[in-house]
């Protein structure tokens, strides 16, 4: 690594470095448990939203069941903790394998049905697991959820957890960025743009969709696992459609098809709902209005401005319309 390259790296990633630096320094300047907790959930949901964008924005797969991965991660850790003596390493390893299996099932469907049909099947799959969790209440606690989720000792300290979650997000960001700029990532973008042509070029679309879904599934389920380790309880709502809608909203508000978009989208949605819910009783209405305003006036999301590309998208009414078009049978 010569000096020129280092300088170049710093220049290209200046905002990333400033932001991560600020996040590292922040708890030493002002240590407020409340804000720390909020930031931890933002980090975790940002990673979750990023994994959703790998599907939506970079592969062109619209899933209405991404919460399945998140909830699966959450319940896996809770169940492993209660019924096994597994180490955390093997828990996460098993979780990754399970995410891969779910990804495989979804890929098989993705090859047969498209658009709204695929979205509905992913929704059904997530709801199936939701029902499963509700009906196996002897093991899962049903509606009451599963409290006392295990976590490694060093994560008992909130500051440590803060850095752990931040580290997780940075890692997910780096992996995603390298991934979408790799030859494989370029193929996924090609599939998003024109799947039929990719097939005629000899690409076995199945393998690439499986790759993308597996990666998104692993990141999504790890996010869920880390989240329950933090809040210390796994509950059915982590699996349900509302959680998927939240992550979809974070991605759209931030900017679909970008890497920073979902991160800022997660921060915005979380902060807004936090602020609004503590000041207004009917905050969800206000939230809805803000969401509509963003979609109408910033159709690319707040951070979705890629030059040239954004102009093209604007002409077509933004991402929401693009998604609507894709959903057409």
């Amino acid at each position, binding site marked *: 690594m010569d000096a020129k390259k280092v300088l170049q790296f710093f220049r290209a990633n200046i905002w990333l470095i400033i932001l991560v630096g600020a996040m590292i320094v922040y708890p030493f300047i002002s240590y407020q448990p409340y804000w720390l907790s909020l930031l931890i959930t933002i980090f975790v949901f940002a990673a979750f939203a990023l994994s959703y964008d790998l599907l939506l924005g970079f592969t062109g797969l619209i899933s209405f069941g991404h919460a399945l991965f998140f909830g699966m991660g959450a319940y896996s850790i809770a169940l492993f903790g209660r019924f096994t003596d597994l180490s955390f390493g093997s828990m996460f390893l098993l979780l990754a394998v399970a995410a891969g299996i779910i990804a495989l099932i979804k890929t098989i469907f993705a090859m047969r049905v498209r658009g709204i049909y695929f979205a509905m099947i992913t929704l059904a799959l997530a709801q199936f697991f939701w029902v499963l969790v509700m009906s196996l209440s002897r093991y899962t606690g049903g509606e009451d959820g599963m409290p006392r989720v295990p976590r490694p000792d060093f994560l008992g300290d909130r500051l440590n957890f803060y850095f752990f979650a931040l580290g997780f997000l940075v890692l997910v960001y780096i992996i995603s960025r*390298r*991934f979408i*700029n*790799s*030859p*494989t*990532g*370029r*193929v996924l*973008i*090609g599939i998003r*743009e*024109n799947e*039929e*042509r*990719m*097939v*005629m*070029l*000899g*690409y*076995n*679309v199945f*393998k690439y969709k499986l*790759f993308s879904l597996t990666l998104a599934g692993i990141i999504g389920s790890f996010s869920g696992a880390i989240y329950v380790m933090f809040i210390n309880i796994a509950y059915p709502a982590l699996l349900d459609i509302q959680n998927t809608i939240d992550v979809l909203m974070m991605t759209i508000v931030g900017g679909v098809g970008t890497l920073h978009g979902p991160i800022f989208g997660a921060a915005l949605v979380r902060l807004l709902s936090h602020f609004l819910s503590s000041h207004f009783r009917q905050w969800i209405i206000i939230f809805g209005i803000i969401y509509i305003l963003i979609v109408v006036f910033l159709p690319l999301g707040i951070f979705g401005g890629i030059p*040239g*590309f954004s102009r*093209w998208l604007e002409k077509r009414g933004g991402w929401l319309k693009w998604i609507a078009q894709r959903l057409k049978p």
Partner: protein
Amino acid sequence: MAATEVLLETQNLKKHFGGLKAVDGVDFKVNEGGLISIIGPNGAGKTTFFNVISGTLRPTAGKVFFLGRGVTGYPAHRLAQMGLGRSFQITNIFPRLTVLENVRLACQSAGEDNFRFWQHYRKFSQYEEKAYSILERVRLKGRELQPTLSLPHGDKRKLEVAIALARDPRLLLLDEPTAGISTEELPELTGLIEDIKKEGSQTIILVEHRMDVVTAISDRITVFNRGQILAEGTPQEIMDNEEVQKAYLGGGGSE
């Protein structure tokens, strides 16, 4: 004996959509080398025939052989990997990527690096270099970094051919490359097809409506009508064939 090797063969190939017999019992054979045109009135089954032999559609009955192997029902991506390239009648490109990236992705598909998911794609410069050379070959030099969406129609048609060429296919199926091209732009595109033919590394099957183009550049012509082969021969033989004239004049008009 490479010159006389049978590249593609169909036996009694059928594709029916319900009661519609789009392709109905076609025996077709292509030897390596040269350019064969498929002509026929609208609805004669030319594009369906392309879709079946390129693996996009499964045949209702019959067999397809490519490079001496039975490939009936093979998925399209496997046929592409075996060396079958195809362009589309309706421009089928990657609209939001640059011209270069359109072709680079096509070049990458032939390589071994598709599952490299960590290094930056530009480190695999061989695909980019290849893409540049193909763009030069189809006369799109200088347009590399333009977004595809903003290309004029003629250039989109060239890009369509460029993508099909990128894998160096043994057999190149060109589905109406001149569709929607103005008379002024036509010589450029036909010149391009002739160049590919002259270079000789591809065998070309061309579906084309413009008779002047077809007769000028084809080695042989196959005439489709109502899903069947009506006639087959050199351009001169086809021009003189009475049945062909009847089909064209009586069967829904030419174009």
